[in-house]
């Protein structure tokens, strides 16, 4: 249980990037009526930012 939790917390920024930041970006764009570039959907655009950002946070240990 403890080992599973430890691993889960290690990858949590990635999960947070995909599960929270991506939809947050998409819904913020919808709120301000901003279209995603290159014909992408807003959620795909959100994922394109949220997933690598989360991965960066896992790798660097900080979000910025």
């Amino acid at each position: 249980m403890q080992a599973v939790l430890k691993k889960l917390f290690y990858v949590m920024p990635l999960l947070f990037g995909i599960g929270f930041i991506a939809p947050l970006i998409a819904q913020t764009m919808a709120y301000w009526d901003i279209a995603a570039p290159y014909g992408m959907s807003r959620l795909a655009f959100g994922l394109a930012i949220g997933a690598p950002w989360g991965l960066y946070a896992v790798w660097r240990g900080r979000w910025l």
Partner: protein
Amino acid sequence: MFEGKLPRPDSAALRRALAPGDAPAACGRPEAAGDAGERPRLRELHRREREIAARYYAIGQTVRWRYVAATLACFSLWLALFPLAILGLVPLWLACGVSYLIATGGFITAHEAMHSTIGRKGSKGWFWNELTGQLSMIPLMFPFAIVRIIHLQHHRFPNDPVRDPDYPDGAPNLRAALWKAWLNRQPGKTAQAHHIKRVLLEEIGTPEAKAALKQTALAQLAGTLFFIGMALAGYALEVAMVWWLPRWLALIHTHVFFGWETHHPQTGTGRYDNTRIFKSSVGSVLSMWLEYHLVHHLYPNIPIHLTKPAYFEMKPLLQARGVDCSAH
């Protein structure tokens, strides 16, 4: 709900309340620090200090229900912000501001509960003390158990680099403290959580501390899953503005203005120099009266909102000891 009676001056509760801080031997009895000729004078100053503290402790006991009422009202409002924001009945910026104030103020009401000023274990007020602590910490997403253990450890070893869980809040100036507060909350090596975990396991090491650590992991996991669940359900913006962002702002606020500013520059470890009397960068209200933090460390069971009048009564006694009282 509460007994409403003032404690008798000889009661065990009062004696415990007026013990010299929650300090270890290093801080000791205040008069022990002086040389033999000084001791009677210091003892007399201490006696008069305790008399003032006893009075404010007693006043605090008559108004402690206010902390419970404030917690119940604020927590209900905080919960109501979710449907209100989702239904568009409250603008998101307003919900964010209100939630930030509730989360920040919640630390103060929880702080009273940490020192059991609302009700001691075994008393009628204990249930309300624990309820106040638990509900107040939910917007900050921390179980009350861990915050209480951490805070009482901080009182025992203020400014001790190894044993004080709040030591990583230290920074040379306000700008650095704001940066540090953010850095300390990052997921990697810079996280204050590593220092706190070590203090809990190695310095405290009680079963309660270990259990509190597990509770914290589960609470943080549950909170994060709630954020993700709400976001996937289409309410990312609402949950971000009602909980996620205000929580972040409140965590930075509490660590900078309640943690860093009160103990800056973290040099003293003695009873009268481990904290200070200062003018807060955010003023009295937003610092929640922590400008009189020395009084709180001397007598932790005087409610925070009464530390200001208690300080002004104690001021001549503190000055007589050489405490810097120039800020107020």
